[in-house]
């Protein structure tokens, strides 16, 4: 990535971070209902991953998907309004946090079922292949999803049909509230994917450039008809599984140590090494804050959906 691209990525990661922080505040003020599964600490997977794609490529993600959705191009205003249940939300208040969708930017949906979006991405890849398009589909999912049946079914199908699919497993070491190594036979999940006959690698998910490079290479191969690739992005989830998670399953020291390696600070240090001034970085962070503040103002000023809206959009 060029320095300019890295600075864009830096600002984007801050947008996601500040979005999640704002949601947490709203949640604690009782202004948000339902669930919230923050992706704090995992921003480089989303931003780097999407940087490796083209704008019209397809993407699915899970309920920890605010970062993926924003990185793919979902309007921060529409995302914030959806969180606040407004008519201007990306789903008009009908989807909420776990189902951000915007086909106009290739975001085919965030899913509450951990592995369910993986075959959707495979199907989008199939559709692109059948329509002779040069588009690829990318599925983001956590390491918890690799124990669901449809994960295995889809990996097999993707190889058999040589689909232009990029699979990105975001391994943050915890499946909900349980350490993944206690419930997963192969903690290096890319080895499972390799067993299905596709190229499979582990990548530092907290390194935006490494993510972008790995996804770009996988996407290029997919576009050239070489089939699917599996990337395991190693990262760490700095906050709990969801709002209200008491996090009894890990020590505070572990989290503090992980914070040292968190992706935004890492990229900041890297940019400084490349000669970018501290004020410039601060300015990017401020711009990110302004984007989120603007989104909140927009959302809070937006109307609630009319009750009749509940009865629309079931069918086309």
């Amino acid at each position: 990535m060029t320095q300019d691209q890295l600075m864009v990525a830096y600002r984007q990661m801050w947008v996601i971070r500040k979005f999640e922080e704002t949601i947490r505040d709203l949640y604690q003020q009782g202004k948000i209902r339902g669930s919230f599964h923050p992706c704090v600490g995992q921003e480089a997977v989303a931003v780097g991953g999407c940087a490796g794609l083209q704008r019209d490529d397809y993407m699915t993600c899970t309920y920890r998907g605010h970062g993926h959705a924003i990185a793919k191009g979902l309007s921060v205003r529409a995302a914030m309004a959806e969180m606040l249940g407004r008519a201007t939300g990306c789903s008009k208040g009908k989807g909420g946090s776990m189902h951000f969708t915007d086909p106009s930017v290739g975001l085919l949906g965030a899913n509450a079922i951990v592995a369910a979006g993986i075959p959707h991405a495979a199907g989008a890849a199939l559709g692109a292949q059948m329509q002779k398009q040069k588009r690829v589909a990318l599925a983001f999912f956590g390491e918890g999803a690799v124990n669901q049946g449809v994960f295995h079914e889809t990996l097999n199908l993707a190889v058999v049909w040589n689909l232009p699919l990029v699979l990105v497993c975001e391994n943050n070491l915890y499946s909900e509230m349980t350490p993944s190594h206690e419930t997963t036979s192969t903690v290096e999940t890319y080895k499972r994917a390799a067993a299905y006959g596709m190229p499979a690698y582990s990548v530092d998910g907290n390194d935006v450039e490494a993510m972008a490079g790995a996804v770009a290479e996988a996407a290029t191969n997919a576009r050239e008809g070489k089939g699917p690739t599996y990337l395991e992005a190693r990262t760490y989830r700095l906050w709990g599984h969801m709002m209200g998670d008491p996090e009894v399953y890990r020590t505070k020291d572990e989290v503090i140590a992980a914070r040292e390696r968190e992706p935004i600070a890492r990229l900041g240090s890297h940019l400084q090494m490349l000669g970018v001034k501290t004020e410039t970085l601060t300015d990017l962070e401020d711009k990110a804050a302004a984007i989120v503040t603007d989104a909140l103002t927009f959302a809070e000023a937006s109307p609630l959906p009319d009750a009749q809206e509940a009865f629309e959009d079931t069918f086309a």
Partner: protein
Amino acid sequence: MPTLTFAQALNQSLRHEMTTDPRVFVMGEDIGHHGGIFTVTKGLWEEFGAERVRDTPISESAFVGAAIGAAMVGMRPVVELLFMDFALVAADQIVNQAAKLRYMAGGTLSLPLVIRAQQGGGRGNGAQHSQSFEAWFAQVPGLIVIAPSTPHDAKGLLTAAMRANNPVIFIEHKLLYFTRGEVPEEEYVIPIGKAEIKRAGTDITIVSYSRQLLLALQAAEELAQQGINAEVIDLRTIEPLDMDTVLESVSRTHRLLVVHEAHANCGVGAEIIARMYECAPQLLSAPARRLGAKHVPIPVAESLENAVLPQVRDIVEAVQAVIKV
């Protein structure tokens, strides 16, 4: 007018749609090389090729999910489940995903998806190969559920399903595939959500669908010999359900019996009767009744299976009981 089997009628519908719309493709187990275990996709692989007629691995969750993904990006997939019982393997994709993705996306997506499967018993295929799930699917907002009983209706409704732009569960019956009937050669559509009076009558309204509709017609012939003139309505679509046709009929006959092969407990019959009492109880001169399979898994031995699934004799007796009141 040509006479075709139910399977041939479906084949014609698929062939016509695949010829005129390049976005339509089919996938499922054994549908390509083999032409489908009930011959519904016979010849399509040879004519349209492996790209558009795809044999899948035994991976219902993945291939239904892939159909969803393909439908989201402009294709029009028609997925075959070998047995409706296998829909349960893909239940998350059908119920949590296909039915709801458009709504959860605030209408920014649409899913032109058809899932075809055959249901039913009567062949001794056992409890995991003989079930009927239309009531389960009808209870899920976001799914259209269709169940034709004749080759004529099968062709027109499958064509309608492929053009519906929404997720359709298209229900066939293993014992209907080789029944025969007149089927127009040209392409045509039968409206989704419209029931049809298959036999006009005056003394009782029998509502049914799929294979049981044929048994209801047989029962009506037997009842006619006893001087009971039954009107038989074929629902054709389970959801959305055409209650208007049922109410209009009952306004003339004043008696209602619903017959289906699915287990009676919590079935479509219960739903229709609930609506009957909600909408117009005053039309009934006797309590409405429903008939369905008894509440046990479906056994294999013929004598046992016949004791569980509604038979013509059961329909005749049920009508007689309603008339006697």
